[in-house]
């Protein structure tokens, strides 16, 4: 070997040293900087991130985007659709790269995204009359520390759906479904008369869907997430009762035990295949049950307000979503035009049966109400009484802790009290 040329070891060490030198931060440990956004020229191409699950369907969104294109010839929108479970992580990982201009966020994320500068503050873009024309419950969807970080898009809450035909077969009166106790009685009747083996179907998989179901029952049983000082209180009172109730329905054979692997799509499928008689789901579900291409129960499903618990309370889980402009977007003016357009009353009224409109006037417009009369009747009562999940910056981490502990209780590995105590213990340090 030529003594002048470097040995293999020297090359390796030199390379590592060069790599380390490059890696040493010039201005930041991670080597990335927050992308500086810009207003842009109000024209150009926009990348928009949507969800293809519940809420507005892919077809709805594509139609809205096409309408936007007709009205704004100089802006081109490229929509991307992901499942809800992938949406949060996609927004976070795309934030550094600045991939998307408009992103769809869930009501539980404004605190996290606003505090980590992932979405832009658009308080100044809000027209003044929105405070009076938008639904009160909708206005707070994307609000954090008195600033607006998005425009609400698709009010949603979980309604209670039941199969009229099956209930009639078991001789159950639908009026008795007004309370959860009545629902259990109905389920027992359905099971004992052999109408259906597992009358209830829920979305209790280890995902946010489980927290949504738990939230609705937590409210019904009079529990709360946080107390006045911001401490978790799910391991007290109504929080424990709700979880005990959930577990008991599995033990009694009234809830399909596979529910712990279900998301809302599986609840939809079991109800539409006649493999369940009752369940809670988002607004979109009723439309799918009447779609003959996928449903065996066309015309059999009915919707009503979520049942009340022992104390008479019956808040619905606030599952609203909002359209936000990414902090790193270089085209924020054009992005605002898109957001403003597709959240306008004219657009949302057309798809009212998939997600509830955010405008007060829509609920008084006969044509809109007639598009989904049963849903609107239930919504009129339920939208006034919604329960919010905690609006804290690290909600994602806390939700995961609670999901695991709820699952352990539902699978019978721990008692409800022990599971919730552990959840509070593990989640409290993450709340800081």
């Amino acid at each position: 070997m030529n003594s002048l040329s470097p040995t293999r070891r020297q090359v390796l060490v030199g390379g590592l040293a060069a790599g380390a030198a490059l890696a040493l931060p010039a201005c930041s440990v991670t080597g990335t900087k927050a992308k500086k956004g810009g207003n842009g020229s109000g024209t150009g191409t926009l990348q928009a991130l949507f969800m293809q699950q519940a809420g507005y369907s892919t077809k709805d969104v594509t139609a809205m985007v096409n309408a936007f294109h007709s009205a704004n010839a100089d802006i081109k929108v490229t929509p991307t659709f992901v499942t809800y479970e992938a949406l949060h992580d996609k927004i976070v990982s795309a934030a550094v790269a600045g991939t998307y201009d408009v992103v769809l966020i869930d009501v539980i994320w404004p605190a996290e995204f606003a505090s980590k500068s992932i979405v832009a503050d658009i308080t100044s873009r809000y027209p003044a009359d929105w405070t009076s024309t938008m639904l009160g419950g909708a206005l707070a969807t994307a609000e954090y520390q008195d600033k607006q970080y998005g425009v609400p898009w698709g009010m949603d809450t979980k309604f209670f759906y039941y199969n009229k035909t099956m209930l009639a077969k078991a001789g159950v009166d639908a009026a008795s479904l007004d309370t959860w106790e009545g629902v259990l009685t109905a389920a027992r009747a359905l099971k004992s008369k052999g109408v259906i083996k597992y009358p209830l179907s829920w979305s209790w998989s280890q995902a946010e869907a489980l927290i949504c179901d738990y939230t609705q029952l937590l409210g019904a049983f009079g529990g709360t997430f946080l107390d006045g000082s911001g401490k978790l209180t799910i391991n007290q009172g109504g929080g424990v009762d709700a979880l005990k109730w959930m577990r008991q329905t599995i033990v009694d054979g009234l809830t399909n035990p596979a529910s712990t692997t279900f998301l809302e799509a599986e609840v939809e499928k079991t109800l539409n295949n006649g493999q369940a008689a009752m369940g809670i789901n988002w607004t979109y579900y009723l439309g799918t049950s009447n779609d003959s291409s996928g449903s065996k129960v066309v015309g059999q499903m009915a919707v009503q307000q979520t049942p009340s618990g022992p104390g008479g309370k019956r808040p619905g889980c606030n599952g609203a979503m909002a359209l936000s402009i990414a902090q790193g977007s270089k085209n924020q003016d054009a992005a605002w035009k898109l957001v403003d357009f597709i959240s306008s009353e004219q657009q949302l009224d057309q798809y009212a049966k998939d997600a509830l409109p955010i405008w007060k006037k829509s609920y008084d417009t006969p044509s809109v109400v007639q598009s989904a009369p049963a849903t609107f009747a239930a919504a009129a009562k339920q939208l006034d009484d919604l329960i919010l999940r905690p609006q804290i910056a690290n909600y994602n981490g806390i939700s995961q802790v609670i999901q695991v502990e709820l699952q352990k209780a539902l699978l019978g590995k721990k008692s409800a009290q022990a599971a919730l105590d552990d959840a509070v213990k593990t989640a409290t340090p993450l709340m800081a």
Partner: protein
Amino acid sequence: MTVTTRLERPVIPPDARRPVRRRRGRQGRLAAVLLLPAAVVVFGVVLYPVVRTGIVSFFEVNSATPVTTPFVGLRNYHDIVDNHEFWATLERTLYFTIVSTGLELSLGMGLALLLNAPLRARWVFRAIVILPWALPTVVNGAMWRGVLNAQYGSLNAALTQLHIIGSYHSWLGSPWGALNMVILADVWKTTPLVAFFLLTGLQSIPAEIYESARVDGAGVVRMFRSITVPLLIPSISIVLILRTIDAFKVFDLVYVLTRGGPANGTQTIAYFTYVQAFSDQRFGYGSALADVIVACILVLSAVYLRALRRTEMSLL
């Protein structure tokens, strides 16, 4: 075993020396230019992130676009060791790795022996066997999720129609069951790869050894134990190391099949790191976890190489 001989440098007449050096210099430049893309990939895509991850693990980084990143020294590593969930996850990952690799090795050995047999349409069997491995892992995960579905999966349908089980079972419903189902999906996909590795090794064993053993009166089992296995040690050690590393890092299968559930029952160390780093945005903690994974894999590989170097046929 190679034999090296030292070559005497030939005596070059002075007037011929310059052209030789110029040719060597030009070849050196050409070599450098051709190696440049590979160097960019290795240093840019492999070494730079590794070094950067190591650095980030000593800081507290709580956002993809952080404003402040205080130096915290070994606190992230300390938090890992103190975290009960981490040890449970490590245990689960070790279980997955050992069972998955063990099953793949034994089934792969059986498959390799079968594929080595002198059958007429051997190439057909080899083509069919390789199909599971050709499937992308994400597709594999999605397929098994459909097969194992509690309401309308084909596994439930097949087993109830064959009267092996009485009613539909929720295969992914319990933490323990789900973990074993993930192992099943992984073994189904990767056994062909292991089989082909071992098949190559089998084919390099000369037939005369078997003949002479048969003449000496050795039975099939004795031949397998004393001839096949020792001569296959290099192939087995390659397969073991590769599969152990891959099984330890398993992520996409878990993400598609169970998303870590139920009750974190299928949460492997790679999925745990992903959730901490990218979902919860604890990048400092996640980087420390990544470094811990690397350390574990190195330890496992060292154990294997040590254990397998007892025979002359080892890699070392």
